[in-house]
């Protein structure tokens, strides 16, 4: 458990960023591999950029409005 936590802290250390990027990767993988979603392929690029920006805004908002601050 300690090792996993150390790796998590080393690479990202932020659950909001981790979930945001993981969701983006999952959606991109689905668009890329599921036939029904193939028409959405041309939106993959803009979707990825928006997902990255949304993750950044979400984590910064959490930091700014955290009750611990």
């Amino acid at each position, binding site marked *: 458990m300690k090792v996993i936590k150390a790796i998590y802290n*080393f*690479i*990202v*250390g*932020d659950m909001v*960023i*981790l979930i945001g*990027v993981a969701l983006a*990767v999952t959606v*991109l*993988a689905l*668009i*890329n591999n599921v036939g029904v979603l193939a028409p959405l*392929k041309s939106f*993959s*690029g803009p979707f*990825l*950029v928006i997902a*990255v*920006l949304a*993750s*950044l*805004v979400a*984590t*910064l908002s959490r*930091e*700014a*409005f955290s009750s611990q*601050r």
Partner: protein
Amino acid sequence: MQWVVAIAAFFASAVEFVEAFTIVLVVGVTVNWRSALLGALAAAATLALLVATLGTALVQWVPLDVLRTVIGTLLLLFGLKWLKNAILRYAGLKARHDEQAIYEETQAQLRARGGVDATSSRFDLFGFLLSYKSVLLEGLEVAFIVITFGVSAATSTVSRSSGIASAALGALAAGLLVILVGALVRVPLANVPENTLKFVVGIMLTTFGTFWLGEGFGVVWPLSDAFILILAAIYLGASFLLTVWLKRVKKQQRAQEIGNQPAPTAEQTKEVMQ
């Protein structure tokens, strides 16, 4: 030579080396230089071994598309972490890294340990380990950036080994520069604009992470590689807007805190006046 890769590795490494240098310096001054330098050299050798073995393994065994997807994701995670911290520091919501404070704190800890003669050249295991640990921990991030950035920057015309070599050269140049400046001034490098460097590297890692992750999933970016500049501009603009917004939030929170404080009573006012 891939200049973008080398420059990104240079900036990222410079920040980490400045942080590691502070600890090596304090060990050198407080314990002795022999133990400090041996610790730093041992850590540098460990890191070089890590980059060489892991880098070579990745280059030889993993297909480029898989590598771009995995490493694009890692770069994105890493880049967003750096960018977030840099924006929070710009907005004043997080304390900036204070090399002088770290220097003084570590020096006090070493002195509290006692029994150390800074003039002696005798090998000190504690000093060696402290120096080794700080260089290794700070350097791990550099090694990670060198490997991921170097491997992913490869295109069909440029080999992956060349990408790693460019990144390693950038990191080496930063290391030598920090050591040279540090050896000349012999004080913690407190004037290095660490947050600006972290911000620039955060933008670069996020930009390249997005680009390569997209390519790994077959995204065809408009204007091909030139779209990297547009991505960087998008993230730069967004970061600027977010910093302005967070500064405003901080100002509002402070105003609210002042507003919530109870007004002084007549007696308290009288005491202050006296």
